[in-house]
């Protein structure tokens, strides 16, 4: 099972585009303790359905909360505790994908050569792997654009990738 270490930005956007539960079923999702505090406090759970869903998945064990230990990363830029812990966990655990939707965290992941994934890519990949329908994938990308504030350039290219995958699948069916 593929392991994914997620930070708060990725968890929230996955919840917002309706894919968090699917992702939790398909992958081993791990978050550091600091991320748990950032997204699933009592106040947030009361006010936001996404936070309630994340909290529920954590309590069911579908999202695992793990300590990153006391080590710190020799980063060239300062990172917030939650993001640094998530990156540290991804490095420590090995063979893990770092899921984030934060530019500064991506910059740090690139510095440490940690493979990272962003939510629009998860959407396209889930469709490629036939884990979600085309309709669901397109709807998720629309939500990432409107609510998730992803740039139109990224969403447009993600939609093109999605169409290419769809056409590829249709052509493969025609060929066989």
């Amino acid at each position: 099972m593929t392991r994914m270490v997620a930070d708060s930005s990725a968890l929230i956007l996955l919840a917002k585009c309706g894919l968090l539960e699917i992702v939790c079923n398909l992958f081993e999702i791990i978050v550091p303790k600091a991320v748990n505090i950032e997204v699933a406090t009592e106040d947030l759970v009361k006010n936001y359905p996404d936070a309630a869903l994340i909290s529920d998945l954590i309590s069911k064990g579908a999202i695992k909360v793990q300590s990153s230990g006391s080590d710190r990363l020799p980063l060239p830029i300062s990172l917030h505790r939650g993001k640094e812990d998530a990156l540290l966990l991804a490095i420590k655990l090995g063979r893990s994908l770092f899921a984030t939707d934060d530019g500064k965290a991506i910059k740090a992941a690139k510095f440490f050569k940690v493979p990272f994934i962003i939510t629009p890519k998860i959407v396209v990949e889930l469709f490629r792997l036939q884990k979600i329908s085309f309709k669901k994938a397109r709807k998720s990308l629309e939500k990432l654009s409107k609510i998730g504030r992803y740039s139109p350039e990224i969403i447009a290219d993600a939609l093109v990738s999605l169409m290419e995958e769809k056409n590829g699948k249709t052509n493969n069916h025609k060929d066989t």
Partner: protein
Amino acid sequence: MAKPTTIRIPEDLLNEINEFVQKSKLDRSAYLREVLRKGFSIDKQDRLLLKYARKELSQVEVCEELKWDTWRFLAQLKARNLYLNVEFEDWLDAAELPS
């Protein structure tokens, strides 16, 4: 408790403020305090969001400074027609999920 401070402001702006305060029957000091508080709040948000766009601050760091949660952060981006600080290059560099 309010503490005194001194600033120099352009004469034309001061005249405009005085005129407005008089016409609106406002307390000049209270009005200036309110304007300063409002202006500071807006300017702080603008500057921190600019730092976010430049990737000098992360989403969580901005939220902590402004006492926002992530949901409010996303709503504010929408209200200001701003986007996440993830670049097109990051999209291209993102890993694929293993089959």
